[in-house]
């Protein structure tokens, strides 16, 4: 089984639109949206949810006002500034609480509870392109990396049960916790970039991250015609670092047109964009060692 993850560093370069199209083009697979923070793939795939699970991860401190004697030890121990004076005692700001348990362990009045944190939900759904494993972290919640691991595990098991040889994942922007989790076990990362100063800068950082975790990387330059000089610089960077450039895709309102209809771009009538994308997918299959 092969696992392919689409990432970008910079947000808004076209990860999800392209992942949706690849989901259309790929053979037997399980699709997985690992951007659990701001997931959008379901807007293209219109999933019918078949399974819903609650996601609990970590804990949060809660002070019982009745038992609190107002000594303030908790506030002085908290490294996150999460405990503030409140009335005669103290209260925890859940947005700042990291769930470290230090206040709970040291409270002389045993006034601090430590309930589990309900961080989000995850789903297994069916779509016109095959099964989709996806999630929604509650706004403001943490532990996205753990939720990414849960989704990947589910997607792998589902692919195995169905005899599918591919797990196709849409990743999150950035280079932090959810992206690091999504790289683990991936056979190929596909970075979608754009020829802008931010696009190139962020590609270089996400490429360094892939190198750090020894994940193979290939690159797609989206909106290549916005700045030919910057496209040339990205291509030269890829040549120097031996990253295959899979496609140069034009800046085309077609992508938004498809999105507004809840379709992927390869479902619209054939275009330069969709032809280039088809070739890119062929190269991805070859690089990932997928049988055609």
């Amino acid at each position, binding site marked *: 089984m092969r696992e392919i993850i689409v990432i970008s*560093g*910079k*947000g*808004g*370069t076209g990860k999800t639109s392209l992942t949706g199209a690849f989901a259309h083009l790929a053979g037997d697979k399980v699709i997985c949206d690992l951007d659990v*923070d*701001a997931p*959008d793939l379901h*807007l293209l795939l219109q999933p019918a949810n078949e399974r819903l699970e609650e996601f609990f991860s*970590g*804990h949060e401190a809660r002070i019982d006002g009745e038992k609190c004697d107002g000594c303030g030890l908790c506030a002085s*121990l908290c*490294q*996150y500034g999460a405990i503030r004076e409140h009335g005669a005692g103290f209260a925890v700001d859940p*947005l*700042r609480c*990291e*769930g*470290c*348990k*230090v206040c709970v*362990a*040291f409270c002389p009045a045993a006034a601090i509870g430590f309930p589990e944190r309900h961080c989000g939900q995850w789903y297994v759904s069916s779509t016109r392109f095959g099964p989709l494993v996806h999630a929604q*972290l509650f*706004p*403001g*919640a*943490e532990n*996205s*990396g753990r939720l990414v691991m849960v989704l990947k595990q589910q997607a792998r098991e589902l692919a195995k049960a169905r005899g599918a040889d591919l797990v196709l994942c849409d990743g*999150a*922007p*950035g*280079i*932090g*916790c959810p992206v*690091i989790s999504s790289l683990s076990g991936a056979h190929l990362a596909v970075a979608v970039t*754009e*020829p*802008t*100063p*931010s696009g190139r*800068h*962020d590609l270089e*950082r*996400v490429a*360094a*991250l892939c190198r*750090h*975790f020894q994940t193979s990387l290939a690159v797609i330059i989206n*909106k290549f015609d*916005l*700045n030919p000089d*910057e496209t040339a610089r990205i291509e030269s960077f890829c040549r120097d670092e031996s990253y295959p450039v899979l496609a140069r895709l034009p*800046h085309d*309102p077609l992508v*938004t047109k498809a*999105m*507004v209809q*809840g379709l992927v771009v390869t479902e619209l009538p054939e275009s330069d964009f969709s032809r280039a994308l088809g070739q890119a997918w062929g190269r991805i299959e070859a690089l990932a060692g997928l049988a055609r």
Partner: protein
Amino acid sequence: MIVSVASGKGGTGKTTVAASLATVWERPVWGVDLDVEEPNLHLFLRPAIAGSETAWMTVPAVEEAKCTYCGACSELCQFKAISVFNQVILTFPEMCHSCGGCLAVCPEKAISPGRRELGEITWGVAGRVEFLAGRLRIGEAMSPPLMRQVKARLEQMLAKGGDAVIDAPPGVSCPAVNAVLDSDVILLVTEPTPFGVYDFKLAWEAFAPLGKPMGAVINRAGLGNDAIYRFCQEKGLPILAEIPYDRSVAEAYARGRIIADLSPGFKETFVALRDKIRALAQPSPSREAAHA
């Protein structure tokens, strides 16, 4: 006053808006990059860097000669960053959240503060804008600790007077919430596409409970559909500026240009945005009380 420019979806124009806004803001003003995973503000403001320092966080350093392997540290640690089995104690610094629990709980005082590199903080001047930014080390999973250090430095600067425009990371989970947590006004930048609208709603859900004045900037107006306008109206969220969908704007961005500098019309758009933000921030009694 601190204004955070946030978005939900990546690539909607946060950095574009933050750079333009900082450029037209009255002095003294700080342009602050809190998108520490993929910092881009410097690519547009082009500051002369005056200094930088490495940012560290505290992790446990164990003096094994003093350790009795009682296990109190590993029992308390919620992040699997310190483990004791039989006569072995191991630390996993990459997992540590720097809560200080193990140091405080060890009865033998066998644990002292060690450190892990988080990244770098840089500062400088870009024309009339003071510049401050965090840059996460490649491979580091946690961005909030570095963001907290950048914010602490900003607070010191602002104690002498002035305002700040913060370029926040995309998404709506812990890094994004951390970025906007201490600001006076939150500006949400979006685009009127289905992805833009969906993530904008998530951002609104994440940030509305903070009780801060919020306003929207619609970038690429004319693209997609009108769902974003209906949502803003429904929630009473003021639309403070619109930037039209125009290929020439995208091309200027791709060349690293600041949009407010493109034409007198665009400059006016951002001057008007600045004035509307100022009006939105008044009155802010909580901040005045905090300074009293």
